[in-house]
């Protein structure tokens, strides 16, 4: 628990002799401090591997205890994060067969229980998600993991350090999906009576943190893994304690009373008082998107480009930002302007009510003769920011130019069910738009899944039944662009079309606020849903 701070260390170093100073690893040979994190989840994400509780579960349990073949580079706060080698050192598509991928695996990686990681274990892990008659098949992990790798058709170990994955159709975006799939220890599963219930009592992965103890529903304690394969990411803190605290006020109280060091998503209203109490508020742009997703089924008023553009020009995003205490980034597209995928769209999404009213007038509507639209919204929900005040503000803004909004308020899970079922389904109640915040960390989740004409429900989640041959062609180009730079350009082209055609009501990106106690040092908030806790120290 005791940590030498820098001054103490220098003083002690002087006494011990210069030798100690020369070895920087000594500074954290013993991890320093315990980091206690309050999560927004209602329960601890299950440490079985393919964990639950969404991105937060992956952030704190998936990528702490475990690793995937492909990881996110989370070291920079100023650059958009990109994929980086994880348990695989490289991956390439077979030049002769664009549906066949070869993953070269990392040598010498061991699970926390000491068993080695190899291609056999990787195949075993894919089987736990995809092969229903495999003894290690786990419904819960399957439910979590399957939707991440829909393209995977088959996989096998070519040799102990080489894994082959074959996709149903060429899919250059496969590594993004593979980045979700983490590797659990087969040896531990065998040892724990060949059950996942036994495994979660003592989970074992290859990640930078090792399992120490867990009190279900209350806390998960991890300790640093000094033997982590990536020396640069060996945690500096000795212990990481994860506590579920779904109530925002409870988290604030816990931080202020000193029973936790780090809280996720402090409520905007508490930020000022937290700052005054000396807490650090960290934020950063990340691939989160809060739009209105338009229905494009027949009869939807959003089928008219002029109406879509008018609505986009009518939203006072800066006003909304001040409503949220500065905790948002005005959206100008599906991804933030700093994203590598934003491109150079010609339609500038800005606040210009006069231009908006003019466009709407051309479409035949005005304040005197308003257009009525029906919009699904939720009162709360994961990633939904402050949906009620934000939507009420949109309602007021749109009313200014002559669009009357009727809300269909749905509880968050009901909204999700209707989102999955599609705009034509009765559960969507004939609404013209829905308002679910989107994870948009890769080209598929950011763009393709919403707009690909082959992904209508129930097969996919193109809620609005948007279909456009040119868009499908642009998506095809992304899927077959195996060179990373060519792929970025292809994604930019698709995104430019989305913005120019105003296919969504672009509203906001969240900034993912966290509040940290003053003694927490060294955290770099990456532009990502996931974060690296390794460099964090607690004084």
């Amino acid at each position, binding site marked *: 628990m005791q940590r030498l701070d820098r001054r103490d260390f220098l003083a002690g170093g002087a006494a011990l002799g210069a030798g100690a100073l020369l070895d920087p690893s000594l500074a954290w040979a013993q991890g320093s401090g315990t980091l206690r994190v309050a999560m927004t989840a209602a*329960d601890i994400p299950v440490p079985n591997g393919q964990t639950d509780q969404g991105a937060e579960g992956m952030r704190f349990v998936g990528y702490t205890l475990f690793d995937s073949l492909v990881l996110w580079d989370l070291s920079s706060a100023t650059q958009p994060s990109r994929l980086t080698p994880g348990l695989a050192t490289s991956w390439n598509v077979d030049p002769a067969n664009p549906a066949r991928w070869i993953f070269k695996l990392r040598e010498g990686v061991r699970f926390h229980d000491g068993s080695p990681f190899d291609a056999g274990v990787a195949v075993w892990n894919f089987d736990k998600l995809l092969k229903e008659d495999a003894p290690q098949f786990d419904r819960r992990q399957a439910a979590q993991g399957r939707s991440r790798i829909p393209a995977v058709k088959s996989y096998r170990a070519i040799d102990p350090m080489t894994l082959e994955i074959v996709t149903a159709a060429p899919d250059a975006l496969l590594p993004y999906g593979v980045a979700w799939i983490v590797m659990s220890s087969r040896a531990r599963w065998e040892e724990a009576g060949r059950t996942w219930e036994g495994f979660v009592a003592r989970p074992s992965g290859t990640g930078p943190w090792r399992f120490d103890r867990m*009190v*279900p529903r209350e806390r998960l304690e991890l300790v640093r893994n000094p033997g982590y394969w990536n020396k640069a990411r060996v945690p500096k803190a000795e212990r990481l304690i994860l506590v579920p605290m779904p109530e925002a006020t409870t988290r604030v109280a816990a931080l202020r009373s000193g029973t936790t060091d780090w809280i996720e998503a402090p409520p905007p209203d508490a930020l000022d008082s937290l700052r005054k109490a000396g807490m650090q508020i960290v934020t950063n742009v990340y691939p989160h998107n809060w739009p209105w997703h338009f229905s494009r089924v027949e009869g939807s008023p959003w089928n008219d480009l002029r109406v879509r553009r008018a609505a986009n020009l009518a939203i006072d995003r800066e006003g909304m930002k001040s409503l949220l205490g500065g905790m948002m980034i005005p959206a100008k597209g599906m991804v933030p302007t700093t994203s590598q995928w934003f491109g150079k769209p010609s339609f500038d999404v800005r606040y210009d009510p006069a231009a908006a009213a003019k466009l709407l007038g051309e479409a035949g509507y005005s304040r005197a003769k308003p257009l009525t639209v029906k919009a699904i919204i939720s009162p709360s929900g994961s990633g939904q920011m402050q949906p009620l005040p934000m939507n009420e503000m949109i309602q007021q803004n749109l009313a200014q130019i002559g669009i009357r909004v009727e809300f269909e308020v749905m509880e968050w899970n009901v909204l*999700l069910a209707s989102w999955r079922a599609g705009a034509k389904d009765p559960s969507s109640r004939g609404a013209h738009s829905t308002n679910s915040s989107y*994870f948009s960390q890769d080209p598929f989740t950011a763009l393709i899944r919403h707009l690909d004409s082959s992904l209508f429900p*129930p097969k996919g989640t193109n809620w609005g039944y948007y279909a456009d041959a040119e868009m499908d062609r642009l998506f095809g180009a992304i899927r077959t662009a195996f060179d990373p730079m060519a792929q970025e350009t292809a994604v930019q082209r698709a995104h430019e079309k989305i913005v120019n055609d105003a296919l969504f009501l672009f509203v906001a990106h969240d900034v993912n606020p966290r509040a940290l106690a003053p003694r927490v040092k060294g955290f770099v908030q990456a532009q990502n849903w996931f974060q690296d806790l390794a460099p964090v120290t607690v004084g």
Partner: protein
Amino acid sequence: MLAYAIKRTLFTLPIMLGVSLVCFALVHLAPGDPLVSVLPPDASQAIKEQMMALYGFDRPYHEQFARWLARVAQGDLGTSIRTGRPVSLEVGKAVGNTLMIATLATLIGFVLGTLFGFVAGYFRDSWLDKAASAAAVFGVSVPHYWLGMILVIIFAVQLGWLPPTGAGPGGSEAWVWDWVHVQHLILPAVTMSVIPMGIIARTVRALVAEILSQEFVAGLRAKGLSEFGVFRHVVKNAAPTALAVMGIQLGYLLGGSILIETVFSWPGSGLLLNDAIFQRDLPLLQGTILVLALFFVVLNLAVDVMQTTLDPRIQRA
């Protein structure tokens, strides 16, 4: 007496069956998606249908109920959809934690309630009665979750005397009866105790007033019985009902702990219920409701039998 106890027990069996049917129906007939806790929100409808079949939610209701009931009869409440942990284990632990605050709250409520009730009943219509009755009315009228929030602001945030939430530094599994842990009990238990305090005070006041107004008490006094003797007589006659009310209150607190535990993040059955509702974890939800309801049924039974034993005046058919 034994015959009465057996008869009452047999009588509760159909009630228990009915309770389990209501639990199942409540949980299953409600609209909503039972896999919401394990499916990522962006999973497609096709994947959802695959998983529904894997979990058996595509079976007819009567079949699901029969299976569930057969397992419940053997003490198996199934496993949580989200965590895969046995529901009986989860509920057992949570009920244990809630019992800690609920028992403490009932005790505080009983001590204060009987005190206020006695004082009020004894000195009827005096200012003492007014004050004690005011405390009692406060207890039954205050929205206790709001009181809990106020207490957190005062004692945890402003004064920093007591921890605001949780069950101690190591979680409930590392619970030991020392100050570090016990201080976590204080705010939730005190908040919770205002309800039984109010109800017991009102009951005791009415009982005491009724006993004192009986003619033979006046007779006893006339015969020269000391005030202490009268007091003993009152205690003896009021105790069975007061104890019965206390027992029932424990059941109400246990079943109604959801608000307090939400405010204090106390890892008990109420918080579990809250999670189960919002995660739509059906096995966990019906298991939690069932255990809490059955606990209440059994508690009622026990109190009823105990009261008959203690109070010979009550004649039961």
